[in-house]
């Protein structure tokens, strides 16, 4: 029998929700243990080994000098490194603070900011080479399974790049923008959630980040046509992926 691939799960600046989504695979968790050697996962294990990893799932963005060193170190020890969730891809909602002077944020929260050494928050791709991105806040567990299966079979994972609108059509939802003039981010957001929010009676807020090659400017125009102010439009794009090249302009760079 060939050796089981070694997996490590790492947390940087984030909420641990992506790790919880791995652990949400209650049905598949025991199978996962048969197929993989989970050798590093601080939240679950006391004995951890991060040497010679086949796969690293990295949750969280980078927001301290210490984290820059740490992510480079993990990169060196890992064959296949995954930016696991929106924070690791582009900082997710924490990146809203990148538009606020750092000193101002620190003074809002801490009586003595001199003890804090934070920087703007960035995706891990800002500092290291990333082999795959799993979009979502959090990523859907079907995508996680797809990625792990592909890793076992040594093939490229099939990760979706089309917009949420496609999944909305599959669910036969009426379009919220055209039928109700509700500012839905669906047309520019990557699918993968199964059009969760529009199916449950509310607009997509964009938690899976930009789809491949979105027309963000056109959607921003539509939002202004249905009476959103410039500030409202900025808030829409400066949320889950304001730092992404696709949304930077509309987010107010």
């Amino acid at each position: 029998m060939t050796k089981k691939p070694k997996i490590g799960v790492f947390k940087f600046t984030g909420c641990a929700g992506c790790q919880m989504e791995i652990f949400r695979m209650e049905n598949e968790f025991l199978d996962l243990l048969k197929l993989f050697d989970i050798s590093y996962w601080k939240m679950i294990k006391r004995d951890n080994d991060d040497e010679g990893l086949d796969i690293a799932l990295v949750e969280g963005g980078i927001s301290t000098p210490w984290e820059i060193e740490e992510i480079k170190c993990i990169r060196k020890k890992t064959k296949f490194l995954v930016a696991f969730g929106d924070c690791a891809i582009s900082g997710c909602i924490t990146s809203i603070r990148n538009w606020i002077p750092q000193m101002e944020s620190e003074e809002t929260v801490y009586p003595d900011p001199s003890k804090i050494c934070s920087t703007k928050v960035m995706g891990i791709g800002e500092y290291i080479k990333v082999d795959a991105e799993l979009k979502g806040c959090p990523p859907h567990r079907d995508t996680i399974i797809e990625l792990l299966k592909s890793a076992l079979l040594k093939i490229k994972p099939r990760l979706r790049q089309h917009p949420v609108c496609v999944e909305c059509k599959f669910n036969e939802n009426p379009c919220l923008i055209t039928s109700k003039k509700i500012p839905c981010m669906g047309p520019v957001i990557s699918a993968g959630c199964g059009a969760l929010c529009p199916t449950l009676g509310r607009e997509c807020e964009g938690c899976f980040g930009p789809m491949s090659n979105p027309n963000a400017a056109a959607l921003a125009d539509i939002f202004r046509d249905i009476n959103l102010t410039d500030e409202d439009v900025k808030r829409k794009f400066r949320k889950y992926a304001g730092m992404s090249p696709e949304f930077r302009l509309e987010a107010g760079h």
Partner: protein
Amino acid sequence: MTEKTIHVDYIARVEGQGAINININKDGKIENLQFKIFEPPRFFESFLIGRKYDEVMELTSRICGICPVAHQITALRAIENVMGIDPCDQTKDLRKLMAISAHIQSNVLSMYFLSLPDLMGYESAIAMAKDHMDIVKRALELKKLGNDITQIIGGRSVHPVTMLVNGFSSLPSKNKLQAVKKRLVNLKKEAHETVDLFANIGIPDFVRKCEHVAISDSKYYAINEGRLKSSEGLDIDEMNYREHIYEKQKPYSTALHSYLKDQGSFMVGPLPRVNLNFDQLSSDAKNAAKRSGVKFPNYNPFVSHLARAIELVHDIDESIEIIDRLALKEEQRGITCKSGFGAAITEAPRGSLYHSYTLDNNGIVKKADIVPPTSHNAYNIEKDMHELIGTMPDATIEEIKFKCEMLIRAYDPCISCSVH
């Protein structure tokens, strides 16, 4: 005696990034003791300024991936308190079912996956599964139960989406709730087995009387609403929280430490809840507590595991009650933006959670103030650790390390939350 330096650079089996630093001099005196939280801050209270009232639930959900539901409900209630909105009973019931489901998930994670390996002599639940597959399977099934209820009502278990100011974007299907009710009834046995497991397992014999704090209500086991009370007579409305509790920054921690005015440290979490609200537990949960042979109120922090197990029995009972009385009718969600200040306290799985917001006339956030359970507990954890080390003068460095880690895990800290 020799000098001892205790250093754990990254505490395992807790959420987030924390360390322990302790120096004991050659007279056995503790000279320096730090529960050092080095989690990078995300500055939620800064970037929430300028955001709209209807985004606050969605944004603050991301403070924590384990207890997003608690942050969502606390944020929604604080915003509703600004606007003078009192949601209908159905909304309150559905929110309570959401909160309880999140407690089930989180408390099962804490008991079985984060702490039980310590008590059974394994490095992790993964290692434990080799010898005790039945226990790990039971844990996964209970955890799935909690997560599935959150998903049925909220759309997904991590960062659910349907809870809004004054209502829900969509109601759960009756059939799905009835199906989950059957599972709740069936898994009650597993909840009782959980109580028995934690009642009979060896825990350190360590008692430190400190002030226990939780929200409390005369009729219900308080989770989403109640007055903030303590074992020493504190009894306040959530809107007056800041008159009684303040925070200090420690140079070694990115999480602020909470203090009760004129009192000092205090504890929040499942043990204070069971201690203060024992009478409001379901009769089966009370019986399970009696069967355990452990007396409440109890001031051994390691009894927190058993408190979680007792709550699990109660959580299942109350979930069934709520599902039975839910009529699930479509309701109108009226909202009129108002400016002003609003605060709310709920019981997150790890204890009392405070949010407050100041909004302007357009519903834009002008000020945000958030205090998670682990900020409330951080100073108390240090005081417990101090006294715990005093009880083991002859212990080796490894033994002290392990006991301190166990103590911290008994509190089930949520470090990302505490820093936010």
